[in-house]
């Protein structure tokens, strides 16, 4: 909104300072516009979950826990497992988060992560069917934002992906209508690695992986989830600002590039 003269006077002081800095090509924490913070991924941190991961992007921390349970399929997809993603913004993560049922921000972010996984067809849900029409694996992905220093959505999406990639579910034996859980385990059938990358627009500048102080002054954030092939499987503009038309492809290019880097980290999880 920075080009609208009437709004000029409402630009908060921090934004002015940040813009001045950005005009010199530098970000507040010294990063380049297209530079992601250091990403750390730990997996299998909770033994009681089928899969789990903690992702740190700088000081931002998210964990994801995967629980798999046998349940009923949806009537319109009787031969497919079910994926359920939810995100809680823990009150630990920020003085501005309240405990309780998810607010619109938590709902939006969990739906971005969910869509990234679902629309990319990352999970071969047909292989999660145990007894057609009766028993399928229901995969719960519960994400916790634990420390909020900006860009929770990427941390959440990467944590969800890492937890899913390393999760183990029991093998089963079907005897008539009965399902027996075996001791042996197998992975969740993942055929894609959809990685969300968020770009913030501050004034006219696009910066990747915004920090908390950048988010606080950004006009808009856009999260794009891309696949190895270059396909984009989910886009979400968030925030009450605007984009120029050429921004769309610029953001795509940033998201795809950074997605590749993160995907290479995930490859090391084995």
């Amino acid at each position, binding site marked *: 909104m920075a080009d609208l003269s009437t709004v000029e006077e409402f630009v908060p002081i921090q934004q002015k300072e940040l813009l001045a800095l950005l005009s010199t090509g530098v970000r507040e924490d010294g990063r380049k516009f297209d530079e992601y913070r250091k990403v750390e991924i730990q997996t299998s941190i909770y033994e009681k979950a089928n899969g789990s991961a903690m992702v740190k992007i700088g000081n931002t921390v998210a964990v994801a826990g995967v629980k798999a349970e046998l349940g009923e399929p949806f009537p319109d997809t009787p031969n497919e497992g079910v994926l359920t993603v939810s995100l809680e913004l823990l009150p630990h993560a920020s003085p501005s988060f309240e405990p309780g049922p998810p607010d*619109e921000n938590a709902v*939006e972010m969990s739906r971005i992560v969910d869509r990234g996984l679902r*629309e990319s067809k990352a999970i071969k849900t047909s292989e999660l069917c145990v007894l057609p029409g009766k028993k399928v694996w229901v995969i719960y992905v519960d994400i916790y934002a634990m420390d909020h220093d900006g860009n929770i959505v990427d941390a959440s999406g990467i944590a969800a992906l890492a937890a899913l990639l390393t999760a183990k579910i029991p093998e089963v034996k079907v005897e008539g209508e009965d399902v027996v859980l075996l001791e042996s385990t197998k992975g969740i059938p993942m055929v894609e690695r959809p990685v969300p990358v968020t770009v913030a627009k501050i004034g006219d500048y696009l910066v990747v992986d915004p920090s908390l102080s950048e988010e606080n002054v950004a006009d808009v954030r856009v999260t794009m989830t891309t696949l190895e092939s270059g*396909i*984009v499987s*989910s886009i979400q*503009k968030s925030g009450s600002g605007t*984009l120029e038309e050429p921004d769309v492809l610029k953001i795509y290019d940033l998201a*795809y590039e950074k997605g590749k880097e993160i995907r290479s980290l995930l490859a090391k999880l084995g």
Partner: protein
Amino acid sequence: MSESVVLITQDGVRLDGRRIDELRPVKMQVGVLKNCSGSAYIEQGKTKILVAVQGPREAHPKHIALPGRAILRTRYHMAPFSTDERKSPAPSRREVELSKVIREALEPALFLEEYPKTVIDVFIEVLQADAGTRSAGITAASIALAEAGIPMRDLVTAVAVGKVGGKVVLDLNEAEDEHGEADMPIAMMPSLNKITLLQLNGRLTRQELEEGVNLVKKGIKELYSLQKQALRARFSGAQVEV
């Protein structure tokens, strides 16, 4: 998203006879309700939506008020009878998300700073859902806001593009949304050429993304002129009805 249905012929003709870059039939009316500040009704294909604006009015409870500007609140909601299967009236997570992105699509157009300490409510009720409800809701909401006399930088106009049978097409209907490969709703302030809403569900290549953004502008241009026409009809005193 199975391809067993042929959604589009080799010649680029869609199931309902439309061309790739053709909108569904659209009907818009402004001022259809008496007991609100502004209202609009839109039909886009079989999608039918009623929008009302209440406000600007004093914020309740008072502590939510902002000293320097109005608060914009939006509620996107689907009637229980709007869908093939009856929808529970309790707001779903999808409705919560859409209420948020719709608010963020409208807000850049409004001079909210002209109404400090107040609330402006936009209520979008989907009476029949046949794809494109969020974009049609935005299109109608912005003319309802105009009727309510809220000063705006530009109208906001929205429509989806999508990928169906391998082709990028304009303004999906429900069958195309369900069996197609991607759905990308976009809202713009047409005169200012700024994007205020951008979402994608589905799978697009970089090139299709580019194509989509170009195609959507054609639809937005046509809808923009229908919006202005509806506003002119309202303010020229023509009789309008729900």
